[in-house]
Structure formats: structure tokens, C-alpha cells
């Protein structure tokens, strides 16, 4: 489905070249993050962390720390209400984490106590003076070990440490396999990945005697933080104000409570003084959360002609110590493992297992990068086994607009077919490659926000309030959280387009729970579609109110349509006839006895299936050079073919796609989180490797033109989904270059060298 030309001609602001509205603040060093906040009388907090992966807390003696000059308070779990919290609030058994545990610690780095002092240095020195008596318990670190009968129990009453199970099924899988000419089974392992936000977790909390708690916090959802903190503190949500004005990255790691916000609040409430807690980079690595490591087993049945018959997948994930967003990741990996293909018969079983390691959670792609690493590599190998063209085989089975994923989702817009054509041309143009060089690609799709409400919010998923000022400037209040993805700019563009004014007329207020309506925040690629719809509706509401006055003033025939474009209110059929926007605003103010025009908009998806109101589609191609002797991978070139519906912000779209590529490529071959006895072995940026400028190839982008009816102006997700295909694309490039199948990511050099050795030995034995 493509955009109708009528709809397209109407766009004046959308998809034009605009600077992000917070750009000047960011390029002049004026943007202030919670990391930078300094309040009068502010104290500094530091967190004492568990050195044990699994231990009972017997006693904590803070007397020596409290005696240190400059120390103002020490808090432990006993100073809290001991509420077990979690983001799956509808399911109490999944609310399993006390940020300051009372009885036992479950991973190395878990907070045990926190100190507030007049300087960060004194607070740090005080940590050494807190004496904690532990009863060390046996730890378990791998899910298959943790499921054994003799494994230690990590959470009381959770048998075999099985935290969550998820099951997705449609069709008749057994019959599907019977129809297949060819069946293939593979085991894969996908590692964890650190979010590695440039701004580490940081919070400044200030509790004042009127009973108000104000928190500056680096997060992806100010509303979640407000609600969760109110819950753990036993306060009313309205007395908790969370401000997240500028946030130094999120990537799925900043919408659960963290130690920084929790301890700064507890300390501030105890002292009635502002307290700031900033994580060091090491703390950010060992004590936040990570992408979920997953063991995947995939069985696929296909006909000789390439028709997909059936697929069955089973996942065992390393959940780490707590649930976090892991339950959703376990579900979404299973759903997106089917993407973007029409499997008539599909079955997925996921098992999330507690271990004594860093909790795992959502991270950009939300389980789908793991799913695609396995799915898209296996499909490539199948195509090779059957002698099929890997593009045509996929195309034949791909989603299309109008397709329904049985009982799960309806696909209203889909640019997949064109993406295959674009990829095919790109690969053909590359011609014959030199030795040790390969091209790989992978397909993927992703959601535009989740329909599920495990958080149990009573509010609309997104809300917006728009107020028109006397001078024709516009205040847009949204609860969306700007974390660098450009959502404030996206909303300003949508508002300007809808109201018929310029982007610079819109002032966006977001990320402050005192002044903005509730919104679920920045996760699951939801804000463009959901907050975008709310913003559009709010502006339509305000515009309709304004136009009533224009009709009255201009005395028009009722059949005439009025519209506003570029600050000009006019008759659609006679654009030269009209009045300036600011004049209309003045007329409306007079006509309404001085009341400002206020528009309100809301969005909650209804009747849109189980998962998401809309889906984006994409193909990622990469050209890779591999040194077969050392196993070193070099990314030479890439091509992204991408369908995000109608792009809203041209620059923002490119930035999101390029950024997703770099993070996903890092997941494919660099970003490695090795644990030894529950201890992360590389919690710093010297030893944790990620893509830097010198590793980044060119990233040309082919934008596919589609129109998503559920999205604002036809828009849907961009920038998270592209995290999904890249690791598989790298794996496929290696397969084509060297003929080896890489079943573990990140794909590290020794694995390639070993695989080649094994291949050579097999060939030798074969002769």
C-alpha cells in the first residue's frame, strides 16, 4: 500500500529538513542532564554493593561509617518499606525486586546500603566502613544449571528457578512438518549486551517538609518512575514529581527503578536535603540490567519449492536475579521469531530462568535481535541446502499488507516486497567478491508500541494537551520522554503540521510529571505512533475550536472547507482568501471571554491484536571482510532498506537507523559479557568493546514509501527494529565468505578460526 498522492501533497512540515528542537541546547553545552543537576545544600550518595552472587544479609553495622566526618546518613533495606516491586504490576509474583534487599542478595553488585555525605569522596570512603555480615549461599549462573533439582533456590518458592514461561502457537505444527520436504534443526546461543548509555544512571532527589518528593532522573518514562516510586515509598503519585528533561540515552535500560533513584529518594526523605547519586561506569555495567542472553533451539520445515510449512522454537533465557522487563522480552522474542514471514504453523515455548547474575531485561529490539540472529541465519542455510535463491525464498513467504498473523496481529502496511527488490539490486551490483569477503542480509520487522498493559495503568497510553497562546505560539504538553531519539521534535512536527503553523511556534513540554499528562514513555517504539496520535488529536481539537471562529468571522458558505497552513487560515479551494493565524487566535480569545484555546488528545490501542497497532519492515545488508587466519571481521559496506510508513523527521530517521546499525553490529561481533562465578569480567570501556567511528561502514538508506493507517500521518516505528537484523546479516556474510555457520553471538575471532579449522578437518575426512 502506498501513500495516496492527495495525502502526500498536504504535508508541509512532515519529512522536511528541520533541526531537532533541542539541538542548540545540545551543541552549545547548555542541555542539563540529571547528571549535571546541582541543588542548594545537596549531598552526595554512594551505594555499597554485594560482593557475593548469592548471600543472606545477617547484619549490617554502619556505626563506623556514620562516625566519619561529613557522613550524614546510612540506609539499608531496613529503612525501606521492603516493597517487592517490578514493572509487571498486574502480576504480583513477577514483582520480585527490592532495590535495597532486606534479607538476601542475588547478584554481585546488588545494592546493600547507601551513604549520604557532604562530598562524593567522603561517601565513597564511608562505604569501606560499613560492616556487612553475610551468610554466603551457593550461586548458580547458567539457566540449564539453575533448572536442576539440586540447584540453589534463588527466590523463595520458585521451583527450579523458573521465573516465567511463554507459549505462542497457531496452525497445526505437527501436520506442517509432515508436509515439509526438508526439516532442519539448530541450536544457537545469543549473548547479553550492555545498554551502555553515555549518561550512567543518575538521580537527584529532594524531599521537602510539605511532603513533596522531586526527582531529577535519567529515565525513559517519567510516569513509570513516578508510579513505581510512589508504590515503594507508600506515597501518593501526585506527591512524587519526576523530571527527565534531557536523558543521556536509554535503549530499553532506563524504564525500571534503579539504585540511583531509589537510594537518592530514601536518603533525601531521611535527611530532608537533596541527595545526588551517580553511577560510575563500572556500577552501570554490573548493577543495572542487560539484554537477555538466550539459548535458542529452532526446527524448521520447508517444501522443496521454498514454501514455509512449519516452525517450532524453544528458548531458555538467562533471566538473572530478577524479572525486570524479561517477561516481555521472552514473549516478544517468540513472536518476532516468526517475522516477517507467513508461517501457517508456528509454535514457540519460552522459559526464563533465574540465575545469580545481573538481571536481564529489555534492550533495543526487545528480544527480537536474538530471534533474528537464529531465524535469519537458519533460513540462509536452508536456502543453500535446497539450492534456493535466499531472497526469492523469503519473498515468497513474506508478510504483505492485509495479512493477518493468525490470531495475533493484523498487518495494515508492509514494504517488505520492495525491500527485497532493493536488496537484490544492491547485491547484484556488488558482483563477484574477492576471497574472504561476503555479503549477508537479514530481514526483520518490529512493532510500533505494545498493546499490553502489564503496568496496569488506568490512564490512556498516551495523552497530549495543546494550548494556544495569545501571540500564536503553542504550548504542547506531552508525557513522552525525550531520550535522544528526537520524540520532542517528532511531536513538534506533528503539532505544526496539524495546526498549520511552523515548528518554531511549538514549545514542547515533556518528561515532567507535574506538568505533563501521563504517558507510558519511550519503549517498544511506541511514542511516534501513540504519542504522535495523541498529539495529532489534541491539535485537531484545538484547530477545530479555532476554525469555528474563522467560519463565523469570514461568513462563509457552509460547504467551504477551511484549513491552516504556514500560519495562514484560508479557504481550501481559494487559498488566497483568509487571515493570518495570529489574528484568528486573537478573535478566538475575544470570542471565548479570554479563555485560551486548549486541545486535548488521547491514544490507547483498541482492537489491534495482541501485540502492536502497526509493524515496520526492513532488510539489512552488510558486506564483510574476514581475515581467515585471525578471525578478525571488518564491516566494509551496508545497505538498509526500510519501511517505517511516512517518515516524520528526515534527519531523525537517518540518525535512528544509523545508530541502530552500530548497536546491532556491535551485538553481532563485539559486545561480549563474560561472567565468571557470577562476576562480570569486563565492566569498563577498556574491555567492553563496541563500534567506534573507525569500525563503522557507510550506511546508505533506502526508505520505502508506505502509509500506515493507524499511525499519525501514516507513520510507524523507526530505529528500534533495525537493531534486529544486523547480527544475522553479519553471520550470513561470514557464511557466504567462508562457508562456516556461526551459531553464537557475538561472533568472536577465535570462533571463526575454530570453525574454519573444523571445516578443513571435515573436508579432509570427507576425502
Amino acid at each position, binding site marked *: 500500500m502506498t501513500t495516496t498522492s492527495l495525502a502526500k501533497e498536504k504535508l508541509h512540515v512532515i519529512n522536511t529538513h528541520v533541526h531537532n528542537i533541542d539541538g542548540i541546547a545540545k551543541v552549545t553545552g547548555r542541555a542539563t542532564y540529571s547528571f549535571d543537576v546541582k541543588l542548594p545544600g545537596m549531598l552526595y550518595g554512594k551505594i555499597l554493593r554485594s560482593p557475593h552472587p548469592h548471600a543472606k544479609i545477617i547484619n549490617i553495622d554502619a556505626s563506623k561509617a556514620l562516625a566519619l566526618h561529613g557522613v550524614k546518613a546510612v540506609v539499608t533495606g531496613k529503612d525501606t518499606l521492603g516493597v517487592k516491586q517490578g514493572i509487571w504490576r498486574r502480576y504480583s509474583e513477577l514483582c520480585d525486586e527490592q532495590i535495597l534487599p532486606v534479607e538476601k542478595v542475588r547478584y554481585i553488585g546488588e545494592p546493600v546500603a547507601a551513604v549520604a555525605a557532604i562530598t562524593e569522596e567522603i561517601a565513597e570512603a564511608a562505604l569501606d566502613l560499613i560492616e556487612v555480615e553475610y551468610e554466603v549461599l551457593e550461586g548458580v549462573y547458567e539457566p540449564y544449571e539453575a533448572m536442576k533439582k539440586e540447584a540453589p533456590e534463588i527466590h523463595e518458592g520458585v521451583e527450579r528457578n523458573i521465573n516465567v514461561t511463554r507459549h505462542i502457537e497457531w496452525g497445526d505444527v505437527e501436520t506442517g512438518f509432515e508436509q515439509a520436504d526438508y526439516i532442519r534443526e539448530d541450536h544457537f546461543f545469543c549473548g547479553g549486551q550492555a545498554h551502555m548509555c553515555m549518561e550512567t544512571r543518575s538521580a537527584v532527589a529532594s524531599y521537602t517538609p510539605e511532603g513533596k518528593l522531586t526527582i531529577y532522573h535519567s529515565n525513559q518514562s517519567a510516569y513509570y518512575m513516578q508510579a513505581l516510586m510512589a508504590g515503594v515509598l507508600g506515597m501518593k503519585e501526585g506527591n512524587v514529581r519526576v523530571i527527565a528533561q534531557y536523558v543521556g540515552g536509554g535503549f530499553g535500560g532506563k524504564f525500571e527503578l534503579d539504585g540511583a533513584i531509589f537510594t537518592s529518594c530514601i536518603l533525601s526523605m531521611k535527611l530532608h536535603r537533596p541527595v545526588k547519586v551517580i553511577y560510575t561506569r563500572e556500577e552501570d555495567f554490573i548493577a543495572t540490567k542487560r539484554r537477555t542472553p538466550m539459548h535458542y533451539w529452532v526446527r524448521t520445515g520447508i517444501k522443496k519449492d521454498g514454501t514455509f510449512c512449519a516452525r517450532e522454537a524453544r528458548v531458555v533465557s538467562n533471566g538473572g536475579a530478577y524479572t525486570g522487563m524479561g517477561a516481555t522480552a521472552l514473549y516478544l522474542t517468540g513472536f518476532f521469531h516468526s517475522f516477517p514471514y507467513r508461517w501457517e504453523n508456528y509454535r514457540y515455548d519460552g522459559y526464563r530462568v533465574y540465575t545469580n547474575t545481573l538481571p536481564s531485561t529489555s534492550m533495543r529490539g526487545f528480544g527480537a535481535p536474538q530471534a533474528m540472529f537464529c531465524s535469519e541465519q537458519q533460513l540462509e542455510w536452508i536456502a543453500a541446502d535446497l539450492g534456493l535463491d535466499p531472497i526469492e525464498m523469503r519473498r515468497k513467504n513474506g508478510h504483505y499488507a492485509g495479512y493477518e498473523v493468525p490470531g495475533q496481529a493484523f498487518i495494515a502496511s508492509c514494504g517488505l516486497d520492495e525491500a527485497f527488490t532493493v536488496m537484490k539490486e544492491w547485491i547484484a551490483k556488488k558482483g563477484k567478491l574477492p576471497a574472504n569477503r561476503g555479503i549477508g542480509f537479514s530481514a526483520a520487522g518490529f512493532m510500533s508500541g505494545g498493546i499490553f498493559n502489564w503496568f496496569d495503568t488506568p490512564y490512556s497510553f498516551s495523552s497530549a494537551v495543546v494550548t494556544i497562546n495569545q501571540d500564536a505560539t503553542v504550548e504542547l504538553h506531552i508525557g513522552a520522554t525525550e531520550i535522544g531519539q528526537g520524540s520532542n521534535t517528532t511531536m513538534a512536527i506533528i503539532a505544526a503540521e496539524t495546526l498549520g503553523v511552523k515548528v518554531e511556534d511549538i514549545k514542547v513540554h515533556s518528561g515532567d510529571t507535574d506538568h505533563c499528562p501521563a504517558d507510558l514513555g519511550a519503549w517498544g517504539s511506541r511514542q511516534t505512533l501513540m504519542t504522535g496520535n495523541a498529539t495529532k488529536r489534541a491539535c485537531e481539537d484545538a484547530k477545530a475550536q479555532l476554525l469555528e471562529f474563522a467560519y463565523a468571522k469570514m461568513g462563509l458558505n457552509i460547504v467551504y472547507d477551511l484549513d491552516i497552513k504556514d500560519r495562514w487560515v484560508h479557504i481550501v479551494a481559494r487559498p488566497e482568501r483568509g487571515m493570518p493565524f495570529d489574528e484568528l487566535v486573537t478573535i478566538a480569545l475575544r470570542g471565548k471571554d479570554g479563555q485560551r484555546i486548549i486541545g486535548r488528545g488521547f491514544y490507547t490501542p483498541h482492537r489491534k491484536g495482541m501485540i502492536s497497532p502497526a509493524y515496520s519492515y526492513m532488510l539489512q545488508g552488510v558486506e564483510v571482510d574476514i581475515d581467515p587466519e*585471525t578471525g578478525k571481521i571488518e564491516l566494509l559496506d551496508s545497505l538498509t532498506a526500510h519501511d517505517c510508513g511516512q517518515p516524520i523527521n528526515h534527519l531523525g530517521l537517518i540518525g535512528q537507523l544509523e545508530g541502530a546499525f552500530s548497536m546491532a553490529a556491535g551485538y553481532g561481533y563485539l559486545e561480549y559479557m*563474560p561472567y565468571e562465578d557470577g562476576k562480570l569480567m*569486563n565492566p569498563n570501556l577498556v*574491555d567492553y*568493546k563496541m563500534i567506534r567511528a*573507525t569500525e563503522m561502514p557507510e550506511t546508505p538508506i533506502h526508505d520505502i514509501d508506505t502509509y500506515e493507517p493507524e499511525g499519525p500521518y501514516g507513520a510507524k516505528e523507526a530505529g528500534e527494529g533495525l537493531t534486529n537484523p544486523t547480527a544475522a546479516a553479519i553471520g550470513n556474510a561470514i557464511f557466504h565468505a567462508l562457508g562456516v555457520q556461526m551459531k553464537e553471538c557475538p561472533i568472536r575471532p*577465535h570462533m571463526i578460526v575454530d570453525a574454519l579449522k573444523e571445516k578443513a578437518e571435515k573436508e579432509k575426512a570427507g576425502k
Partner: protein
Amino acid sequence: MIHDFTYLKPGTVKEAVAMLSDHVDECKIICGGQSLLIVMRQGLIATDYLIDIKGLKELDYIKYDDKEGLKIGATTTHKSIEKSALLKEKYPVLPIMEERLASLQTRNWGTIGGNLAHADAAGDPAPVLIALDAKIKVGSKAGERVFELGEFYTDLFETAMNHEEMVLEVQVPPMAPKTACAYKKFNLLQNDMGVVGVAVKITVDASGTCTDARVILGNAGVTPVRAKSAEQILVGKKLDEAVLVKAGEAAADDADPVSDIHASEEFRRHLIKVLTKRMARQAWEQAVKLG
């Protein structure tokens, strides 16, 4: 957190060594500090006095004459070495090595003396300079001493200097005719520390036979490792594939690498084998081309 210290800033080398002698055992020298400040922040080094020699202009030089060879002062920055036209001509391996030593900012501020004195097994300059038969001049109140750089390193982060001494200068003899040196480290990110590094210097005669060789391995032991058995294989031969492979294998045997998250001991040996073969070939090919 950094342990408190008294900050001392000498104006001359003479003042610096006097300060060293006044505070032996309780002082450290900082120059660029690109590595030192990290370990001080981690609390691995706590010192009562910090002597800052970064501003000592008298040690900031690159000098060369055909007789004595090259002299680089201790406070010369990596950037100066990398950009030196003189070095690009006389010792091209040095600027090539420096370009990949670390980030631009670290190369801008960090110094060759600081790098050599820090004695990190994964440092790039030491293996290359040892391959070039470099010497290192250190000084104290008592006078100056010169070490073969190959004998300077005694253990992880340990050198043969005593606590009253500081690095003054690195000296490299003139390159023999028909001699070339090549260096490469294996890493995942371009300017990262090497998982291993290999420097090979080859001298050939008119017939192309290798008459002298140095094979120095970086991050293959607690100090730079001289792979003597690899050198012996190379000398007296024309370096065909079979010789190169054998030399690589010998170097891997000479190495004593650790296992860590970046590579197992076995994989490090494998990488040394590959890099030795490649660097020996590269140096030999360059040497053969020289007049």
C-alpha cells in the same frame, strides 16, 4: 578515589631528580598521565608526592644524526613522533606504530617516556623500539645510566630503574643498510590495546638472504618477549612461506601469554604465529627493496 598527594612541579631535570631523591619511595612521576591517573583513581597507586614533569621542555625533542642515531626526549608526545617528518623518513615504523597507539586525545597529551616507564605489557612502543635495538637513558641525582631497552623490563609494570631514577631519553642506533622493521598488533578496534603485537626487524644482503633479525612480541608475556628461536630460523635464509611459517611457530613457542577474556593463551599463540609470519614477510619485502 585518588589518594591525596603533594604536587611538585620541577622547572628542570636537575630539580626533578632532586625532588625524586628527596621523596624516594613516597613519590611518583607523572608526565602525560594517561595511564597513571587511571590506576591512581582505582586506588592501585597511592603516592604522597607527585612530581609533574609534563612541562619539562628540555626533554621534548627528536634528534637524529647519522653517527649516533635517533634520540627522543622523554616528554615528547606520541603526536610529535607520529607527525615527525624525520621519523617518517628514517624510522617509518615508529610513526606507523604511533598512529594506532591510542585515541587522538591520548596521543596528543601522552608521552613516550611515560609510556616506556609505565611498563604495560600491552604497550606498543617497547616491542618496536626493542626490535630497533633501542637503549633507554635514565637519570637520578647520582647521574645517568643507559639500559638496553630489551633488558629494561623486569616484570609486569616493573623496570630496572631504581626509585630515584626517571626516564630521560630513548636512543635508537641508525638503521643498518637494507634493514626494515614492521609492527602490527591484533585488536578488535583500530586504536585499541593489542591482544598481542609483533615487531620484526629484518636485514638482508644483496642476494636477499636475511642476515639479521629481531622478533619482539608484545603482550605475550609479562614483559616484551624476544623470540630468539624465531630469529634463528629467519637468519641465513630467504624468507619463503615455509621459513615464515616455521618462524611463526617458533615465536608462538617462545611466547608466554596469559588467558583472559580477550583471548585464550592458545588463541594468543595462534595470533603470534600469524602476525610473526606476516610481519617478517613485510619487513623482508621492504628490506629487499631498499638500496
